[in-house]
C-alpha cells in the first residue's frame, strides 16, 4: 500500500516571498507625467505602471521577530522574469530556499498568467519527497504564518477592488514630500478597513503603508527602504510591524542583479528539481 502524505515544507512562506518579489520588482524610473488634478486612483495607477526591468536575480532574506525578540530567518534565492504579457504571461518566478537547513533546496515556481481570471500556476518541489507537485493558489486575504503580510498586501490586489482617495501631501522621509492615498476595499469581507499609502511625490516610490483592521483599529505599519540598480529603484528592505501582536517581519533584498537575460528554460520543473539556480 505504502500510503503517505506530503509535508508541505514552507510552501506558504515561499509563496509570500514570491509575491514579495512581484512587489519589490515595482522598480521605478522618474516618469514625466502631468501632476494637474491627480486623483488617488491616478497615483496608484502610476505606481502600478512603473517599469520593472526584464529580469532579476536576488537573495531574499525574511527575518521574523516575535514580540519577545526571538528571531527566525528564511533565506531564498529568487529568479524573476518579466514577460509583459508575451506568451500569455505577466511574469515567472523561481525560488530556492537556502536557509533554514531542513528546508534547503525546497523550490517554488510561479507562472503569473496575463489572461484575466486565470489563476497563477504554482509548483512546489520538496527534496524530502523528491517530486514536484501542483499546489492550489493561496487565499489573497490569508495572513499566512511566517510573515506579517497577506498576499493581497504584496501587490496582488487589483486596483479596481478598492476606492482610492488622495488625502493630501505630507512631509515624509529625507525631507521629501509624499502623496497620502487612502484605499478602502469595496467588498465587506476584506481583511482591512483601509490602507494608507505614503508615496514619494518626485518618483512614485511607496515608502510607508498603514493598515487598519476591520474594526478600524491600527493593525500594522510597513516601511520600505529602496536601493538603485542602474536606472531602476528596487526594494532594499521592508519592515512590517504588527501593532497588535508586537510581531514584525523584515524583508531584505541583497545580491541583486537586473537584466541578466534569463531564458525561458530557467522557469521549468527541470530547474525546480535541481534545487538550485544558475
Amino acid at each position: 500500500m505504502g500510503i503517505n502524505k506530503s509535508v508541505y515544507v514552507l510552501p506558504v512562506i515561499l509563496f509570500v516571498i514570491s509575491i514579495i518579489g512581484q512587489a519589490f520588482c515595482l522598480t521605478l524610473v522618474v516618469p514625466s507625467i502631468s501632476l494637474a488634478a491627480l486623483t488617488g486612483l491616478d497615483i496608484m495607477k502610476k505606481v502600478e505602471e512603473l517599469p520593472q526591468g526584464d529580469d532579476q536575480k536576488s537573495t531574499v532574506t525574511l527575518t521574523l521577530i516575535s514580540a519577545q525578540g526571538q528571531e527566525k530567518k528564511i533565506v531564498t534565492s529568487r529568479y524573476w522574469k518579466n514577460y509583459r504579457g508575451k506568451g500569455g504571461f505577466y511574469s515567472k518566478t523561481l525560488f530556492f530556499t537556502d536557509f533554514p537547513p531542513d528546508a534547503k533546496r525546497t523550490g517554488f515556481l510561479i507562472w503569473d498568467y496575463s489572461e484575466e481570471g486565470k489563476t497563477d500556476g504554482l509548483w512546489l518541489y520538496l527534496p524530502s519527497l523528491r517530486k514536484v507537485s501542483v499546489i492550489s493558489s493561496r487565499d489573497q486575504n490569508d495572513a499566512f504564518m511566517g510573515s506579517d503580510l497577506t498576499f493581497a498586501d504584496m501587490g496582488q490586489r487589483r486596483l479596481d477592488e478598492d476606492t482610492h482617495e488622495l488625502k493630501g501631501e505630507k512631509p515624509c522621509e529625507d525631507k521629501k514630500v509624499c502623496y497620502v492615498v487612502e484605499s478602502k476595499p469595496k467588498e465587506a469581507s476584506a481583511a482591512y478597513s483601509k490602507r494608507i499609502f505614503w508615496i514619494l511625490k518626485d518618483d512614485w516610490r511607496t515608502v510607508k503603508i498603514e493598515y487598519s483592521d476591520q474594526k478600524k483599529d491600527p493593525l500594522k505599519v510597513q516601511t520600505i527602504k529602496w536601493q538603485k540598480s542602474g536606472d531602476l529603484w528596487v526594494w532594499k528592505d521592508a519592515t512590517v510591524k504588527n501593532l497588535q501582536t508586537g510581531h514584525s517581519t523584515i524583508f531584505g533584498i541583497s545580491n541583486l542583479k537586473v537584466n541578466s537575460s534569463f531564458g525561458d528554460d530557467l522557469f521549468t520543473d527541470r530547474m525546480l528539481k535541481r534545487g538550485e539556480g544558475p
Partner: protein
Amino acid sequence: MSSLFLSIFLSIFLLLVQNGIVWAEEPTEVSPLPPAEGTAPVIIEEKIEPAEAPILLPMQGTTPEVAEEQTTTKFSHRLITWMREEIVKDIELRGFLKNETAYRFITPPAFTKILNILQVEPSYSFSPDVKLSGRIWAYYDLAYDIQDIGTIAPMKTFGFIQPPDPGQPEPDIENLKDIKVDKYGINLKEFYLDIFFTDMDFRIGKQIIRWGIVEGWRILDEVNPLDFKEHILRDVSDRYIPLWMVKGDYYLGPLTLEGLWIPDVRGHEPAPLRTEWSQFQKLPDLEPVPRKLENSEAGLRASGMVGGYEFAIAYLYHWDDFPAAFRSIAGLGLGNLGISPTVTFTPRYRRLQSYGLGLAKSLGKIVLEGEFAYVDGKFWGTCTDCTPEGGGFGELPRDYIKHVVGVKTVLYGADISMNYSQDIILDYISDIQQQRHEDAASLFMRKEIRYGSMVPQLLAITLVNRHEYLFRPKLEYRYTDKITFLFGLDIFTGEPGPDPGRLNFFGYFDEDDRAYMEVKYSF
C-alpha cells in the same frame, strides 16, 4: 577534471554492478509463521568502509622496495593533499541529528523506539553541470539496551515461539522469540552523479525515483521497493529503498521524456523478524532474481503540460516487489486417514508490465488529480479449499487495474487533500483470496499557526472494505531555525486478520498505538 571524475565514478559503478556488490545480501531467513501471500523480500544493508588510516612518510636510506613504497606513499600523499585542497574544501555538507522516541500505550506499554540518527548529505560540484551527491545514515536504537526485547515486541495474535530444531541449542533466554534486533548500523542511502546537458540530464547511481502525481499512492510510483521496517510510518526518504540505476531525461519543449535502466533488482523489505512491525515475512527458498542484463528493470515516462493539464504517461517493465508463493498441496482428501495435507512453497519473483497515466489540473484554489495503471502479469493466491474447476489451490495469473482520484485545496489557511483509490482484479473468480476490489481513502490536513512556528497536521487513511483505519495527528514546533520538535500519535484500528496467512494491513497493529516525539537538529 570533470571527465576524470566522471570516468572514475562510472568505472566504480560498473565494477560494483559486475561484481554484484550492489546486490550484497544477507542470508535469507525463514519465518516460523506460515508466510503471507506473495512476500519474500531480501534484507540488504550497505556498509560504509572506515576511512583510510593516515599515511606515514618513510624514513631516508631505504631499500629499492622501500623506495618504491616511498614513491607510492609520496604519490598518495600528493593525492590526498590535492583532494583536500581541490575537493574537500568545496564539499557541501548538510544533514541532521535526530532523536525519535516512541511509546506504545496499549498493553504492554513500552518505549518501542529511542532511535538516534545522524544523516549526512555531502555533495560536490565538479562543474556547474556535473555534481556528485550522497546520503549516509547512521543510527543507534537505545530502546533495546534499556528494555526487555519481549516487551518492545510482544507476541502478536498469530505469533508463536518456534521450538529449536533437533540438535540446535535452546533459544536465548533473553530473546525467547528470537527477535531480529536492528540496533545500530550505517547505510549508504543514496549516492549518485548528476550530469546536465543542454537538453538532457543524467543521474547515475543509487537513487529514489518518484513517478506518481498524487502524493502518497503507489499507482505510477512503483519504481523503488519499500522498506516496511516501521510499517509505512517513516518518511519517503526512509521508506523507499534506493536502487542503483541510470536515469536519463530529455527535454523537448514542454515535454520531458525519461528513461530508466535498473540493474539493481530487489523486492519489498519486510520488518525484521518478529519485531514490533513485522507482518508479512520472507518465504523459504526464495531465490533472488539472477543478476543478468536481461533481468534488469526498465521504464519510460513522458510528462508535461497540455491544455492546462499536467500529465504523465509511464511504462515500467519490472519485477513484482511481492514475489508469488506458488504453493502446491499434497495429501488432500486423506484427512480421514489421519494424514494432514502438506503445503509446499516454491516462491519466485515474477515479471510485471505496468502501463500508467497521471493527470493534474489546477482550478485556482482547487487542484484535481488522478492516476490510473494497468498491471499485466500479477499472480494471486487462491483459497485452500478451492475447487479444481476454479483453478485449484495455488496461484492464478490475473491482470489488475488501480487508480486514485484526489482533490487538494486551501481552506482557512489550511492545506487539505482528499483521495480515493481502488485496486480491481480483472477476470476475477471467487477462489482468489483477495477481494475483487480493494478500496482506500485518505484525508490530509495541515495548517501553519503562530507565524509558522507551530504546524498541526492530520493524516487519516481507511481501507474501506476491511474497515481498517490509521490516524496520524501530529504537531511540529519549530523552536529555532535549526531545532524542531515533533509530537504525534499513530492510532491503528481494525481486526488483525482472518487467519495467520492473511494479516490485515492496519488492523494487525490494533494494539500498537503509540505516541512519539522527535527532536531534530539540522545543519
